[in-house]
């Protein structure tokens, strides 16, 4: 950013601190990407203005800049992420319960009726998940009691890898001090949100409680990685196992199993154990476990191995890099 900060804010060099602040606020209002998510140019304008404001808001820095001791360049901010970049992304915990998961919870048959009803009731889903259907109906009617659904609550928790893969029940401590039992379904993904009906805030006047939405973060496992429904591991093998093949034990999410290493296996080769992956919640089918082999040398190259290799090389040398042209 080499732009003149005064120009970026649209003020004169003689502007007062108050004028600078006012100019910045005006630009920020119009151009803050999070307040103007549909404006594609907003980010560039906002970044220029905030870099300029960062420099000019501090009288001492401003004086140094005016004297030419520092330039605007030094004021560049580290790469910044705006909330709007996450807001529409899958697994945004702050969208849970606000219709993020498509039209989750609505029967497809009732989809349009549901949206139109919301409108007719003056946007019954108000602040914080809001007053339920009963609000419009009961409040508007004659001689009725006031009844409202409780607000929805949102929480986030991290669970061990295995709990997410195999399912478990854990307990979350609420900011209010209480606890909530959360059933983690088998095959839960990182960033997935679980809805607990009726576990949100209490209703008013006999109205039903709101829902609790718990976003799950999955803790990485030292051995297993996950790619959709497949489990990935790297399995170290010895050189003799690589050359001669054989059966070795490999960990799976169900415990160790024997796998057959083919004769002449290479590092990077992938073996597939069908049905040893994660259960897909929709299809009920399990993914695979993929085992990437990695040949590990013995801790010490002894003389016997060395002399054998020297002999072997004389007659059987090969070039695995053949055809590798740069």
């Amino acid at each position: 950013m080499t732009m003149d900060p005064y120009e970026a804010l649209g003020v004169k060099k003689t502007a007062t601190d108050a004028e600078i602040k006012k100019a910045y606020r005006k630009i920020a209002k119009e151009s803050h990407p999070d307040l103007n998510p549909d404006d594609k140019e907003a980010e560039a304008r906002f970044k220029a203005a905030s870099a300029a404001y960062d420099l000019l808001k501090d009288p001492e820095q401003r004086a140094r800049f005016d004297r030419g001791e520092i330039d605007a360049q030094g004021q560049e901010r580290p790469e910044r992420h705006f909330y709007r970049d996450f807001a529409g992304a899958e697994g945004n915990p702050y969208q849970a319960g606000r219709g993020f998961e498509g039209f989750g919870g609505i029967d497809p048959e009732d989809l349009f009726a549901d949206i139109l009803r919301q409108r007719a009731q003056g946007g019954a889903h108000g602040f914080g998940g809001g007053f339920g259907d009963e609000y419009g109906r009961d409040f508007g009617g004659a001689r009725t009691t006031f009844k409202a659904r409780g607000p929805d609550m949102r929480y986030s928790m991290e669970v061990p890898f295995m709990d997410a893969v195999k399912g478990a029940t854990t307990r979350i401590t609420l900011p209010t001090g209480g606890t909530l039992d959360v059933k983690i379904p088998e095959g839960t993904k990182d960033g997935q949100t679980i809805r607990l009906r009726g576990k949100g805030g209490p209703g008013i006047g006999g109205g039903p409680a709101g829902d609790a939405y718990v976003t799950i973060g999955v803790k990485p496992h030292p051995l297993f990685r996950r790619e959709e429904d497949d489990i990935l591991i790297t399995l170290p093998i010895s050189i003799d196992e690589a050359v001669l093949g054989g059966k070795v034990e490999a960990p799976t999410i169900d415990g160790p199993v024997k796998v057959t290493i083919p004769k002449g296996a290479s590092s990077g080769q992938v073996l597939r154990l069908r049905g040893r992956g994660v259960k897909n919640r929709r299809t009920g089918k399990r993914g695979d476990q993929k085992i990437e082999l990695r040949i590990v040398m013995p801790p010490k190259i002894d003389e016997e191995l060395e002399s054998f290799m020297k002999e072997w090389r004389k007659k059987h040398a090969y070039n695995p890099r053949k055809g590798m042209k740069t």
Partner: protein
Amino acid sequence: MKQRYFEKDVIEAIELLTPGRLERFVKMQVISPMQTDEGPAYRDVDLARLELMCELSEHFGMEEDALEIVMSLIDQMHALRNRLRLMARAIEAEPEEVRLRIARFICEGNEPPPEQ
């Protein structure tokens, strides 16, 4: 696994954020860190959200009660945008005739489209 930040990392990363402010935001439940064995952990989305909240309170002098309302409105706006996007995608997949009828209805106002 995405990046995780603990309280001190978050305070360090966001210039305008103080420990007191963070604590209040969490208590207000406008920010909900992930509960982990090592204490509350924040994700990139939390950082972006915190930065926005700090700017609103610092640069616009927004009180925290008002901030809570604004954040809720922003969340609702994004939820609506997501719904709208899904709806647009669904309409895009329809035959041209249907798309045009819907477009005409939206552009021309609130008269329901004529029965075919």
